[in-house]
């Protein structure tokens, strides 16, 4: 193809989408890196300041609270979401007549946005459970879970598992049904118990589904914002702030653009490294077919 025609084709098909992608994503991303090394206040830059913004970020004790809280949240939600989702997938693929019906119920929370779900649970924890606890004298719910840092953590986990397990269930169902029937029949003839089949045949053959589901929950855990805002809004006393909310508060409420953005860059690096490690580790378990 002559060069002029090739360029014309590129512009026709790829020009506009790539331009929008660059303007919306690439430019702010590069800008963001640069800003963290300057005294940017949201409007103008007067000088370069080296690593001052990063030093300030790490000197902020609230940032450490957030990092610890986020790390714990990511690990616990990653494990529980995937265990529950895999269990749901096994139930739905167990050849029950009600499979379709069950799948719908497990999936529905996923259709609804995190804020709406968070607000529903805020009502449950703050009002419904408290009023029931007073009526029937249940000590554990008498004070709202959202008023206590440790219990609020579990409230966040409960809502997250409820919301995300349906989606990951679909990913696992896709993996489970992709296993050929002859393999399963062969293992049955060889006398493998259902549990043995699960661990020695099914799970290894659907490792790709685990790679994807773990990646999605890892990323989702770090990016969680909606449920956090709607459920606790960081309270009590900014002790339940996940990293997204922390950055949002820093920049848009306190006006600390420089440190806010360096925390955002730190977040990006953590997510990128965690995701790369996770994907390369899980890839090793995938069986080539």
């Amino acid at each position, binding site marked *: 193809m002559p060069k002029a025609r090739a360029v014309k084709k590129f512009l026709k098909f790829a020009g506009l989408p790539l331009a929008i992608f660059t303007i919306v994503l690439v430019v702010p991303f590069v800008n963001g890196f640069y800003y963290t090394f300057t005294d940017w206040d949201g409007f103008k830059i007067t000088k370069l300041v080296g690593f001052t913004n990063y030093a300030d970020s790490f000197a902020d004790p609230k940032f450490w609270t957030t990092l610890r809280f986020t790390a714990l949240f990511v690990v616990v939600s990653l494990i529980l979401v995937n265990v529950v989702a895999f269990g749901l997938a096994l139930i*739905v693929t167990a050849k029950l007549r009600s499979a379709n019906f069950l799948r719908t*119920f497990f*999936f529905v929370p996923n259709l*609804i946005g995190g804020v709406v*779900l968070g607000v*529903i649970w805020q*009502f449950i924890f703050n009002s419904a459970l408290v009023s029931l606890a007073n009526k029937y004298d249940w000590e554990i719910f008498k004070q709202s879970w959202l008023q206590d840092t440790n219990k609020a953590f579990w409230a966040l986990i409960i809502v997250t598992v409820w919301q995300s397990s349906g989606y990951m269930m679909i990913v696992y169902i896709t993996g489970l049904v992709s296993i050929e029937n002859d393999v399963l029949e062969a293992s049955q003839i060889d006398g493998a118990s259902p549990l043995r089949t699960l661990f020695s045949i099914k799970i290894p053959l659907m490792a790709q589904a685990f790679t*994807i589901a773990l990646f999605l929950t890892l990323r989702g855990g770090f990016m969680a914002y909606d449920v956090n805002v709607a459920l606790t809004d960081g309270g009590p006393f900014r002790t339940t702030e996940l990293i997204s909310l922390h950055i949002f508060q820093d920049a848009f409420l306190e006006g600390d653009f420089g440190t806010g953005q360096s925390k*955002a860059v730190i977040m*990006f690096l953590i997510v990128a490294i965690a995701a790369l490690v996770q994907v390369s580790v899980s890839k090793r378990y995938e069986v080539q077919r």
Partner: protein
Amino acid sequence: MTRRARLGKRITFGVGITLAFAYFFPFFLVFVNSVKLKYDILANPLSIPLEITWDNFEQAFTKMNFFRALTNSLIITVLSVSLLIIFSSMLAYYLARAKNKVSKYIFLVLVASMIVPFQALMIPFMARFAPLVSYNNRGALIFFYIGFGTALSTFLYHGFISTIPTEIDEAASIDGASDMVAFWKIIFPMMRPITATVAIINALWIWNDFLLPRLVLDEASQTLPLSTYLFYGQYSVEYGQAMAGLALAVIPIVIFYLILQKQFISGISQGAVK
């Protein structure tokens, strides 16, 4: 079937149905309490209503400006998703067919960009786009969704286009069709399954998105999640109205899902395998 297998099935069913009820329970609470009187909610949040009132719905309907929010959500979702389909299918077609280094690198950058969380760039993003947002905030939001959605959508299309034989393009061009005509008349219709996937994944994301609209939209342009959140914040003491507001936010998407259930499930599993 052996007795043991039958028993196993019964237990599975029992566990499944219990869990299904647990998953549905929060919605049940919202629905039953949305038609109760206030004192009834606080006294018996779990029971079915003693007396049904539609007053809560009426109040919530007007106070959260339900129709305006629904219309905003519909406009923003439909336009963003349609434009994303048009742009990313074209881009993916170009990248999958052009066998040169540049297109390979562009594709790599797109894939890599999927790891970048929005939070990592939202601060410079908002500073840079403030003028555009104040000029037309709904338009700006749609523009942003196209930018943020391009990578995943292009990736999904790219995987699909690679399975369409190039002979089809060649045949079209021998018959005298231009690139554009060949793409829209022949290739694009062949991609219906993946277009459904792209549409559903993006529609779910955009319909439910909260952070970006919260940063970008003014009061008159509020989408459903945003107006629900603000409404709940203002009227959370009026439990009945708050519950009616939540019910209103939940109902449209659930109806949509029940109509298109098959497409939803296959869309997500298609999207997951890639």
